[in-house]
Each structure stands twice: as C-alpha cells, then as structure tokens.
C-alpha cells in the first residue's frame, strides 16, 4: 500500500512535469487560450457593467465577474483534456503508458495536475488583464495561495470528468459535441456571471450541486470580497469531488483503449 501511494505520487509528478515541459517548448497555446477570457472580460463584462441590472453585492460587475471568467477559463482548459486522452489513444501513446507499471491513478493525477498548471497560467493572464482594466482585486500572498488551491482542485475535477466522458464516447467527434454541451450549461447554471439568488428555483438547485459554483464562490471570496467564512466549505467540496472523480476516472479511462 505504501509503495502504491509512493508510486502514484512520484509518477503523477513525472506525468505532470512532461506536460509542463511540452508547454515550455511551445507556449503559444497559452496565448491562444487567453483570447476567450479576455473577450469575456473586455466585451461582455464591460458591456454588462453599464447595465447595473445584476445585484453584485456592492462590487462592480467587472469585480464580480472576474472570478467567474477565471473559473470558465480553467474549466475550458480542463474539460478538453478528455480530447487529449482520445488523441493519445489514437497515436498509441496511451497504450504504451498503460503497459508500464504505473498506477492508473497516477496517470489521472498527472493529467489533473497539468490541467491545474495550465489553469494557473490563465489566472496570471486574467489578473494582468484585470489590472489593465483597473478592476480592483484583492491580490495578497494569502489570496494568491488560495487561488492556486482552488484552481488546482477545480481543474482536477473537470479533468477527471472529461476523462470519464472520453472513456465513454471514445471518438473525438462525439467528445467535441458532448464537451460543448456540458461546459456551457455548467457555466450558465452557476454563479459565474450572475448570483444564484436571481435564478428560478429549479436552476438554483442545479447551481448548488454544480462544483463550478463552489469554485467561483471560493475565488470570489479570495480576490473580491475578502470574506473567507465559506472558503473552507468550498475547498472541502472541491477536494471531495475531485478525489472521488479521480478514482472513478482511474477505473474508467483505461477502457478507452479497449
């Protein structure tokens, strides 16, 4: 058991490190991925901030929406990791790795960690853009550490989810369709761009079981309100769902090669 845990942790690190090395070899992906959140903040956020129809608890709409856009960006990065699993299956990389004496969980955690790293680069870009737009964010050492934790956990959950979807649908075409069907409703059925309180009751229920809402809530507490009373609960929920989905994913995704 001790050996299994040690193997899982060390090999997760190996897998994540290689993903980071790839990113360093070709960082253009980070730039292209940054376009969407910048458009959301710069166009959607700026436009809606003039309307003042959405109750934002005393903060500007741009302040309110920044954690939501960061969450969306991280989720979009993570959810398409399933596509990379299908691509790795098609190229043979996945089969080769699955034949090594590597715990299945290590492969999942490695992907989760690398999605988290990609998510953090998105956070840096969004914070820089927010600074340019003069959005007042509470960025202290503690809040940044909190952001790292929330982004890593949130990215982990959605990476695990995408790997499970990939193991079920098995083809890129189907995954692209389902990926889009899932990400946008998850985003809109959360507190990312409007508070849960203004939603109809049935949607409030969906938003409350949507892990994306806990991610937004945690980030909003850290970088906007500074009220950290619900932060431990948000982190606990994300930790539990990320861990559970990693177990399910480790069981499911080797089936993608069958």
């Amino acid at each position, binding site marked *: 058991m001790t050996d299994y845990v040690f193997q899982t942790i*060390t090999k997760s690190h190996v897998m994540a490190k290689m993903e980071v090395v790839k990113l360093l070899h070709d960082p253009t992906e980070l730039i292209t991925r940054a376009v969407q959140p910048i458009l959301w903040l710069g166009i959607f956020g700026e436009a809606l901030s003039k309307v003042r129809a959405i109750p934002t608890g005393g903060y500007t709409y741009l302040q309110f929406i920044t954690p939501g856009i960061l969450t969306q960006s991280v989720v979009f990065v993570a959810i398409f990791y399933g596509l990379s699993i299908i691509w790795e299956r098609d190229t*043979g990389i996945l*089969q*080769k790795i*699955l*034949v*090594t*004496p590597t715990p299945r969980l290590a492969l999942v955690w490695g992907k989760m960690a690398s999605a988290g790293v990609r998510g953090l680069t998105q956070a840096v870009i969004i914070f820089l853009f927010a600074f340019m737009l003069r959005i007042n964010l509470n960025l202290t050492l503690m809040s940044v550490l909190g952001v790292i934790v929330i982004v890593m956990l949130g990215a982990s959950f959605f990476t695990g989810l995408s790997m499970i979807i990939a193991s079920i649908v098995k*083809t890129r075409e189907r995954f692209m369709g389902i990926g889009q069907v899932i990400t946008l409703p998850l985003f809109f059925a959360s507190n990312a761009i409007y508070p849960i309180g203004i939603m109809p009751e049935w949607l409030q229920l969906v938003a409350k079981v949507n892990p994306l809402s806990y991610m937004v809530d945690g980030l909003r507490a850290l970088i906007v309100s500074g009220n950290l009373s619900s932060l431990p609960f948000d982190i606990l929920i994300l930790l539990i769902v990320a861990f559970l989905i990693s177990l399910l994913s480790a069981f499911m995704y080797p089936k993608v*090669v069958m």
Partner: protein
Amino acid sequence: MTIIAVENLTKKFGDFVAVDSVTFSVKEGEIFAFLGPNGAGKTTTIKILITLLSPTSGDGIINGFSFIENPAEVRKSIGYVPQMISVDGALTAYENMMLMASLYDVPRKERKSRVQEVLSFLKLEKFSNTMVRNFSGGMVRKLEIGQAILHYPRVLFLDEPTAGLDPIGRQDVWKYLVELCDTFKTTIFFTTHYMEEADEVSDRIAIMNLGKLATIGTAAELKEKTGKIGATLDDAFIFFTGGGLFLEKGNLRDIWRARTTERKLG
C-alpha cells in the same frame, strides 16, 4: 525455458468470439512472429498478453507471472511498441526516453546513463536534443523501440514494427532488434503483414485465423505443411487462413490508424 505460456485463452465481445481457446508457448530469446489476416484475433491476443484487456477465460504466464493474477509484475517484464506512432513529437528524444525510464522504474541514479546507453545502441545519440516531430520514420521507430527496452524487458511486443517504413528503414530496425535479442536475450513477439520479413527473422511463426490458432512452427515447417514444392510463406499464410484474405474483418478506426501511421512514417 518458456517465457510466454498461454492456455485456452478466449475472449468474447458479446456473442462474437475474437479469440477462441488459443494455446501456445514461446521460448526465452526467441523471435516469434504472430501472423494472421485483419480480424483474426492477433491484436486482441496481444492486448490480453500486455494486460490491456482481460480474457473471458483461460490464463497465461509471462516471465513466471500470470497476466490475470499479477498484471503489475507482467508489466515490469515487458516492453511494448504499438503500431501507431507512440512517441511525443512535442518532446525531444531525450525527454521521451526519460519519461519512459521514470514510468518503468529505472532507478533515478541510472536514468541518464541508461537513456544515453540506449540512444547510443540505436545510433540516435546525436539527435538526443532534437524535437521528435523532426525525426524520419525510421528514427521514430528506433526511438519507440528504445523507449520500450530501457528497463531491459524480458519480452518485447511489437505490433507491425516496420509498417510504413521503406526497405532501408525496415532493415535498419531489424538489425537493432536482432542485436537486442542477441545482446540481452530479449524475447521478441511481433506481428507483421510482411511475410518475407517474418520468414527472414523469425525462429517460429504462429498463424491465427478466425480467432483460432491455425498453425505454429518454423517457417520451413509451415511451408512444408502446404504440400507445395517451393512454397513461400505467402503460400503458407493463404493455405492456413483459407479465404481469410477475402473475408477479413476489422474496423474503420484500425484501418485509419494503420494508414495514418504508414503515411506519417513514410
């Protein structure tokens, strides 16, 4: 000494029997060709042997470990080179090798020297820091073999290792595989559609057809069984697979993969 022993191996997908009570064994240090038309059950059998798939019934032993009861130990004993391109073009040759060295538990202190040793064995040391997306087809195949032998496996499984390579590339790859077999006593278990290749390099050949093991023996024995004077291995293949060439099964994804690999390597 027997390194692979398979007994009554059966794999069913619903009502379809992909592998039907297959029994055979492979000796240590042998170069063993596993042939058959598409859909004959070769890939399914290999997937079971390399622990990617569980059999419906039957069992087998690789290097003394059951691939049902002890798949983790089997994985430590084998290396695998899929037909598809399985190196990462976004990494250098050295990085690709280091990744597999870590995953195969090569001791941390030995990793760098082991990677250099294998790159040198494959005459790829000059390209250690080259991005793999710039490699030729033959270099890619050699690097894939290099990744699979870093931990000195007892058995190396190769799925069509020379598909898509020109004759020079094929000769080059086999030169290193035969040398590997001689140097490290590694058993080589491979599939191919090139009969002349199987004829030239194999110690023994098995031919699968419609999920069953149609025959097993040396190339000479298989040719003799056809009863035809001057028979080639092509003749033996057709003899043992009957109309297999015309009734071949498979799926579009496998065909797409095979053609993509050939296009990329060629």
